[in-house]
């Protein structure tokens, strides 16, 4: 078992003929993900990946033709919210949006709309999902994680890779890794994923990687206290970030005293989560807990 993606995932790639789309589609396919279709308006009828994946002009037509149930979005930021609406309206169950830099008001409209539909969005501005050995829907390098019993959820991208790699180096495997993205408004938050890990029999312990800004980690701490029976280790990035400075992620703005790393660490430690001083300590913290 795993969460969100597995062998039954039939993946559609929006923006498949762009540089990034094509590169990562190749990687996903090589990893074993069942990539059934791509969409690039104006390129319908072409084929990519040596004639293995058909390209459609629209998500609706691609879904009708291939039975795709999951979409990953690589389209540029200014078109990305439309791509999410298109995927949602075409009836996909899971949408993973890699694109970074989507205007925040676009995302508020998207999220408000999706909340009335039976669809899950992961991201945007996220590295996507990896269920080692089964399926990869995103840009997480496939060779840095092995199958196992650790569920990983993170707001960060490359920082997550470091944690996965550190786990692999000590022989610890991962059930599913979910990058939820660092934007202030996104589709899936810590609580959503923690609940799924709690339900997933394969997952026996959980790693949570947060960062400064917002209060998702604090709410995750409450959720862990009330609902999680599995041990959790965490790391919070930005402990030394100067207050008020914008840190690349729109989400990483420390606003008026809230969102500080110290507060998040305190909240997590208060509910018996071990918080690492630096991310490479995570494996030993997990081993202590089990």
């Amino acid at each position, binding site marked *: 078992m795993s969460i969100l993606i597995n062998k039954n995932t039939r993946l559609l790639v929006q923006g498949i003929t762009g540089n990034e789309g094509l590169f990562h589609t190749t990687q996903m396919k090589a990893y074993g993900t069942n990539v059934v279709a791509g969409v690039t308006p104006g390129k319908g009828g072409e084929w990519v990946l040596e004639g293995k994946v058909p390209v459609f002009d629209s998500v609706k037509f691609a879904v009708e033709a291939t039975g795709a149930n999951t979409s990953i979005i690589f389209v540029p930021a200014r078109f990305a919210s439309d791509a999410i609406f298109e995927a949602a309206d075409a009836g996909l169950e899971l949408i993973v949006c890699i694109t970074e830099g989507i205007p925040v008001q*676009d995302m508020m409209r998207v999220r408000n709309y999706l909340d009335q539909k039976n669809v899950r969005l992961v991201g945007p501005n996220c590295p996507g999902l990896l269920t080692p050995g089964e399926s990869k829907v995103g840009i997480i390098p496939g060779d840095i994680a092995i199958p196992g019993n650790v569920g990983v959820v993170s707001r*960060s*991208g490359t920082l997550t890779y470091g944690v996965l790699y550190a786990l692999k180096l000590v022989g610890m495997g991962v059930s599913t890794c979910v990058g939820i993205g660092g934007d202030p408004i996104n589709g899936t938050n810590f609580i959503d994923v923690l609940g799924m890990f709690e339900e997933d029999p394969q997952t026996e312990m959980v790693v949570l990687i947060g*960062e400064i800004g917002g209060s998702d980690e604090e709410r995750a701490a409450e959720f862990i206290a009330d609902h999680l029976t599995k041990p959790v280790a965490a790391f919070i990035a930005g402990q030394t970030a100067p207050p008020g400075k914008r*840190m*690349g992620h729109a989400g990483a703005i420390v606003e008026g005293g809230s969102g500080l790393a110290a507060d998040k660490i305190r909240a997590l430690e208060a509910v018996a989560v071990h918080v690492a*001083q*630096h*991310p490479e300590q995570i494996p030993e913290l997990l081993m202590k807990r089990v």
Partner: protein
Amino acid sequence: MKLHEYQSKQLFSKYGIPIPRGRVAATAQEAKQIAEELGGRVVIKSQVLVGGRGKAGGIRLAKSPAEAESLATQILRMDIKGLPVRKVLVDEAANINKEIYLGITNDRSIRRPIIMASSAGGVDIEEVARVSPEKIIREPIHPLLGLRDYQARDIAVAIDLPREHWKVFGQIARGLWQAYQASDATLAEINPLVITGENTLLAVDGKMVLDDNALFRHPELSEMRDLDVEADSEIEARKYGLSFIKLDGNIGCMVNGAGLAMTSMDIIKLFGGEPANFLDIGGGASAEKVSAALRIILSDPNVRAILFNVFGGITRGDEVARGILAALQDIRTDVPMVIRLVGTNAEEGRRILADANMITAETLAEAAQKAVAVAKGA
């Protein structure tokens, strides 16, 4: 992107919000002339993108054109919190009977914009929010429906605004929302919104912050950016799509990803060093971008060591490596460099850099420890 007070108020005015008569001046002479045109008492207001201008002496009342000139001269020579004053706004002085706060920002916890108001407006509004949060009225705004008229009315009631002002207050709230939405703002604020001696409402001060990610659809707003107030290195960084913030330490950092960049800073401190900057080269960084990033880091004379921490995903190790090589051909430097390169195409990247005389590291901890050591001259 922050707008100056005068720019924010011009936008407000476009959406029907009453603002004082006034204009911006770059010289004391211009300030005097504007004061003459306004024919009476004026306020000279420094235009710098930082709070606390008033307490720093950057906002002064002039009772005559001559006084306006002399105060403008003083203010135009000031530095406020490190920022030089290059422009002043000369506004007709208002008679202030009462100060109200009215602002809109995004509330990420409810995923909606929120409009906030208080009868205790003015410079101490943050203190009010801290000490007496019940004095701040909050109304979430539906992202698809926008601010409803009844909400503006409910706010007027809740802040005890006299009835005769409800109608204009409603127009101002609607105008503020329209300005916020139409400009893709993340903050739009009137503080204070005053009731004048003539019993009218007037937006005496205004502030807007725009969403950088949405500027592509607002070319006319992008042009308002004030390059004067940014460090050259930050302007250069934005040109190449890099996220860069200058800090006070001596270990330059070049990292892909904001979370990993913050973590690199955290871990440098953990091992006793001080980062010279935050620098996120972003996803899919090209050689050109990496090269620019390196030049920017090396332009800081404090830098004693550089830590490269790249974990390939969208960003490919080989491209990063080529960028470093290209930059090192342009810029001769003796600054020691520690590199950690993992993930997509990392192996090829390491091969490219084999001859570049860099210190390599496997883990982040190792990389940080090595960087701290070489920065201390070890």
